[in-house]
């Protein structure tokens, strides 16, 4: 149990083999499912007795809703509100996934490049589809901003293309690195607490502080992911 990377190991819970593709139900899948279920349960419980004047429980989902609504309005504009549900789901999924991973014996699926990378690629495809749907051929202007001479096109077009493709990559790396580092740090400090015996109270104190910090980081990273998705969506919707 001393290996701090052991917590990120994927274990197969229910082996499923679909024509030589391994689509087994793993502990990562379980964590994702539980995250979605917890979102639904929290929202259902909070909005059980919805009134016009919100009570305390009801004001939590409403604050989240307004928060994401304002985020989209500021970063994408009024036309971006059509895609509210997508951004809202993205925010809730990552925020709850990060927080879920902080519980003892749970699994942090947001610390896996495969999970977050797939989500980021999905967001990129969504952005491209939205851009093409709204601007038709005008979307190709993304790769050659106005005011740039055509002689420079062979240089600018590949640069803009790489810039577009590197966005999901940087989104993924940011979230994954933050989650992985935080959990490794917690694990190592936890090891100190056990190894030092009575003196372990000192690392335990730091551990408590770092857990609070990790809760903050979990929400902050979800927020950053959402803001950047909004900015990329805004880029797709309008020309430079």
């Amino acid at each position, binding site marked *: 149990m001393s290996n701090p990377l052991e917590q990120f190991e994927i274990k197969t819970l229910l082996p499923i083999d679909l024509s030589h593709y391994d689509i087994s139900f793993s502990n990562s899948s379980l964590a994702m499912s539980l995250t979605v279920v917890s979102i639904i349960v929290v929202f259902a419980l909070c909005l059980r007795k919805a009134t016009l004047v919100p009570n305390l429980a009801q004001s939590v989902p409403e604050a989240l809703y307004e928060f994401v609504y304002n985020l989209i309005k500021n970063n994408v504009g009024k036309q971006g509100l059509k895609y509210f549900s997508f951004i809202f789901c993205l925010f809730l999924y990552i925020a709850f996934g990060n927080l879920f991973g902080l519980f003892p014996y749970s699994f942090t699926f947001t610390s896996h490049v495969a999970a977050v990378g797939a989500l980021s690629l999905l967001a990129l495809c969504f952005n491209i589809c939205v851009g093409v749907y709204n601007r038709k051929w005008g979307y190709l202007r993304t790769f050659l901003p106005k005011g740039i001479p055509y002689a420079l096109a062979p240089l600018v077009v590949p640069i803009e293309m790489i810039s577009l493709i590197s966005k999901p990559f*940087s989104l993924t*790396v940011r979230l994954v690195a933050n989650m992985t580092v935080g959990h490794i740090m917690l694990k190592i400090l936890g090891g100190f607490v056990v190894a030092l015996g009575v003196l372990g109270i000192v690392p335990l104190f730091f551990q408590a502080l770092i857990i609070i910090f990790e809760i903050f980081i979990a929400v902050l990273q979800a927020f*950053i992911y959402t803001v950047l998705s909004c*900015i990329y969506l805004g880029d797709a919707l309008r020309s430079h």
Partner: protein
Amino acid sequence: MKKPADIEAMEEKIEAFKKKEKAKKAFVKNPSSAGSAAKGFQLSVDLVSGVFVGAAIGYFLDVVFHSTPWCLVVLTVLGGIAGILNVYKSAKAEEKES
């Protein structure tokens, strides 16, 4: 003169509600008290990711076209430029926000 009990209770309720509304507004208004460290980390990842993605695409093209190492060299350089462009863009967006 002493106020009737029910009016007093109502006033208390109104006060509590006002406090709650205020807290909610403060949260919605300023959720982006994101730390500077997070912003700095974001820019550094933006810068590096361009190089990585450029190199990856270059390597892939090399494998496809058997043109080692030309695509890798050219696309790594272009990726570096794209990374700088990314940082410039996010810095400009940041500036517009503040």
